[in-house]
């Protein structure tokens, strides 16, 4: 059979001229600016606009080069679409003027004097080099055979990091600090650490200058470093790309994802669909507000903005149009960028209806749970909002959504600092919080003790109070309830006893986290004791306070070594990841007799899935040591010592699989404020030839 010559498509020809450009009626779908044969198809919708104009700029220029009103015949329903021919896509930026009523009481805020960003813009120009405008993206990246990794959710060890802050400090030594490309150079570090998933703080285009405050001492303007104020949901942040000046941020970010996948590391994005960068009626008009305010935002009956997010506005996520927008966006990131999952900021808002009321079956959450494109994506909810709705354990999950487990964080913090009355709750938290997630398996809970929002681990054990004066709000911002303890001195000290205790407390937190059923999340830098000098709300500091200081990798090598081993130990023991909770028995000073009384500070759990996979974890938050009688290990095995946070390094953690046997098999000493982890191996098991040590301590 011979190949037939292909005929050029009819829709590749212009039919008329508008604003000096050859055009024809466009295709309504897909929305956004899409390269087509001979030109670019522009499509934008608004249910309340009366007219629309496409505004074209030469890249970087302040005045438009052309304005192209959409003729009536180019409008279908509320969708305006036009194909414009002979555009050099690399050299143009675009936006829209939307015409319609300015009638805030009815929710309308049309303002044709503003050129609006395209909500579907797949590329935005870098605001540090010119106006921040929508651009046309080319999607010709060479993915080779890459695809999302689909690691079992319960096997993840998540590492929460800031794509810029991770390498921006000069100590990172990378060739392009603070960029996606710079992060690629640190993949060997992540591999050695052992994490298999990175969760990136927002990388959708946002306004880093959106902060009216300045530093109270230096007077320098503060920034919006974290990026929870999205400007363009389809566009990777341009200033995080070393190649942003070439408009190649999409390629650079895809290259990062590809390299992470090659290293066996999944990529989860922190996404912010609860609000936008447009604020309330005093905020700027950037995109949604001018395109269709009444559709995109939750409004009071008299047209004011509901503020469930604490930032001025609330995206109207369960409006069918907005729901479609969110779905389009996530499908795009999953398919075009091979993203493995999403963490939803203030996700409780996504379960609210247009009037803010709580929905029993929120259409958006259901759509995301059952979407075929997103089927293998991890969906993680921050299950609360800024208006007091707290849904940890009750978030509409469709057996699909996981949650940031805030109760896990609070309980571990309280136990480790020595509070009484929490041993029982700690036991529940360590087996996947079945009180909250019964019958859903261990992947339902994302266990964390620290995250970007709050103290770092080092600061959790170094400060009783937050120290947020540098944020320009007289220390009023940030959480007051930190459940932290400074170990006897507020802030930096040379006191060796205080420092030793802090080192132990950090290991206690990390060991409990990595020996709990459920998915652990580690805040980047905690493995090397990163500090923010007691600032627990550092959203506004783009500098040494928030950047990863790579000198710590050498200075705190002992802590890093401990964490690496603890992660490897977790990966070697399925019972710590998958459960079931019923495989865990509880013990105390006497085996099979846990002490659940109010004053108890000692808890021991045996995670027993049989001879090859049995782990005993003893946690003591008392300031005195205790000797615990041990339950018998599975037949044919003896107890070996994996970790003892009271032991001097390097005896605080041993090589998984080569742990030394415990000399006295009947009992184990757990030092003051410390955690001991034992593992069962055959009598002549992996560690059989290792030096005999009593409880891992030096003889």
């Amino acid at each position, binding site marked *: 059979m011979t190949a037939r010559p292909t005929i050029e498509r009819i829709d590749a020809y212009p039919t008329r001229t508008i604003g000096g450009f050859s055009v024809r009626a466009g295709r309504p779908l897909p929305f956004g600016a899409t390269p087509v044969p001979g030109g670019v198809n522009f499509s934008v919708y608004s249910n309340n606009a009366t007219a629309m104009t496409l505004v074209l700029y030469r890249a970087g220029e302040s005045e438009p080069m052309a304005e192209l009103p959409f003729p009536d015949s180019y409008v279908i329903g509320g969708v305006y679409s036009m194909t414009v021919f002979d555009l*050099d896509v690399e*050299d143009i930026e675009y936006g829209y003027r939307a015409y319609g009523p300015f009638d805030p009481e009815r929710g309308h805020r049309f303002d044709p004097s503003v050129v609006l960003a395209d909500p579907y813009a797949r590329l935005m120009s870098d605001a540090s080099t010119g106006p921040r405008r929508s651009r046309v993206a*080319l999607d010709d990246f*060479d993915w080779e055979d890459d695809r999302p990794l689909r690691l079992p959710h319960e096997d993840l060890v998540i590492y929460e990091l800031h794509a810029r802050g991770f390498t921006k400090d000069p100590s990172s030594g990378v060739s392009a600090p603070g*960029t996606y490309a710079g992060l690629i150079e640190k993949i060997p570090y992540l591999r050695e650490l052992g994490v298999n998933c990175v969760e990136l703080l927002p990388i959708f285009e946002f306004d880093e200058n959106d902060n009216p405050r300045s530093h109270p001492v230096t007077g320098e303007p503060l920034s919006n470093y974290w990026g929870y104020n999205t400007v363009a949901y389809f566009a990777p942040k341009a200033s995080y790309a070393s*190649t942003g000046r*070439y408009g190649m941020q999409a*390629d*650079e970010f895809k290259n990062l994802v590809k*390299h992470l996948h090659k290293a066996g590391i999944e990529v989860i994005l922190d996404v912010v669909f609860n609000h936008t960068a447009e604020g309330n009626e005093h905020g700027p008009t950037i995109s949604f507000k001018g395109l269709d305010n009444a559709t995109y935002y939750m409004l009071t009956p008299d047209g004011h903005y509901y503020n469930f997010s604490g930032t001025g506005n609330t995206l109207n996520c369960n409006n069918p149009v907005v729901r479609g927008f969110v779905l389009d966006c996530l499908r795009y990131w999953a398919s075009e960028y091979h993203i493995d999952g999403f963490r939803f900021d203030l996700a409780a808002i996504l379960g609210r209806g247009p009037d803010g009321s709580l929905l029993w079956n929120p259409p958006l959450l259901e759509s995301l749970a059952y979407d075929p494109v997103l089927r293998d994506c991890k969906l993680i909810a921050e299950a609360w909002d800024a208006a007091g709705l707290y849904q940890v354990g009750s978030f509409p999950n469709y057996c699909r959504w996981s949650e940031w487990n805030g109760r896990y964080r609070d309980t571990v913090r309280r136990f480790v600092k020595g509070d009484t009355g929490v041993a029982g709750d700690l036991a529940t938290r360590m087996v996947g919080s079945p009180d909250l997630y019964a019958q859903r398996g261990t992947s339902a809970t994302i266990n964390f003790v620290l995250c970007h929002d709050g103290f770092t681990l080092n600061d959790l054990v170094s400060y009783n109070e937050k120290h947020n004066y540098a944020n320009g709000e007289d220390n009023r911002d940030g959480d007051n309830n930190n459940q932290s303890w400074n170990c006897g001195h507020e802030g930096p000290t040379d006191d060796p006893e205080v420092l030793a205790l802090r080192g132990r407390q950090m290991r206690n937190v990390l060991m409990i986290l990595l020996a709990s059923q459920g998915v652990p999340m580690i805040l980047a830098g905690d493995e090397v004791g990163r500090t923010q000098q007691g600032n627990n709300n550092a959203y506004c500091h783009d500098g040494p306070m928030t950047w990863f200081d790579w000198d710590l990798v050498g200075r705190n090598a002992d802590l890093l070594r401990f964490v690496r081993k603890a992660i490897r130990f977790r990966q070697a023991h399925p019972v710590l990841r998958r459960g079931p909770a019923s495989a865990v028995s509880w013990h105390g000073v006497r085996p099979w007799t846990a002490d659940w009384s109010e004053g108890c500070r000692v808890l021991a759990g045996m995670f027993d899935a049989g001879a090859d996979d049995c782990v005993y974890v003893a946690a003591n938050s008392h300031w005195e040591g205790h000797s615990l009688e041990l339950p018998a290990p599975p037949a044919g095995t003896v107890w070996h010592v994996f970790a003892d946070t009271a032991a001097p390094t390097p005896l605080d953690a041993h090589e998984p699989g080569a742990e030394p046997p415990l000399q006295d098999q009947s009992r184990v000493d757990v030092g003051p404020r410390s955690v001991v982890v034992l593992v069962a191996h055959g009598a002549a098991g992996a560690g059989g030839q290792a030096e005999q040590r009593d409880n891992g301590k030096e003889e």
Partner: protein
Amino acid sequence: MAFKAKMRIEGSTATVRLEGELDGRSAPELNELVVRAADQRVERLVLLLEDLSYMSSAGIRSLVFAHQKMPEETEILLVGTRPDVAETIRLTGFDRSIVMRETLEA
């Protein structure tokens, strides 16, 4: 400066000398030459870039296009890539199977 591209095929090597600005408007011309070279089943594609005054991201994309048009084992050699362009190629990962050299002889 106007864009010019001349291709010479000798044995199993196609050599393309580029002049002027390689951008979104001129890239299709290079792409056509790449298609012709691929039809000739060359084993090596050499792009001489010393006389190129500018290369935009569309130019860099032409290199991806070349890589995808040619059989996997084809060697693609860039000669005289300007440092900023070479850096961009590297940072966006397009250097995976492209070799960059200062001179043809090096």
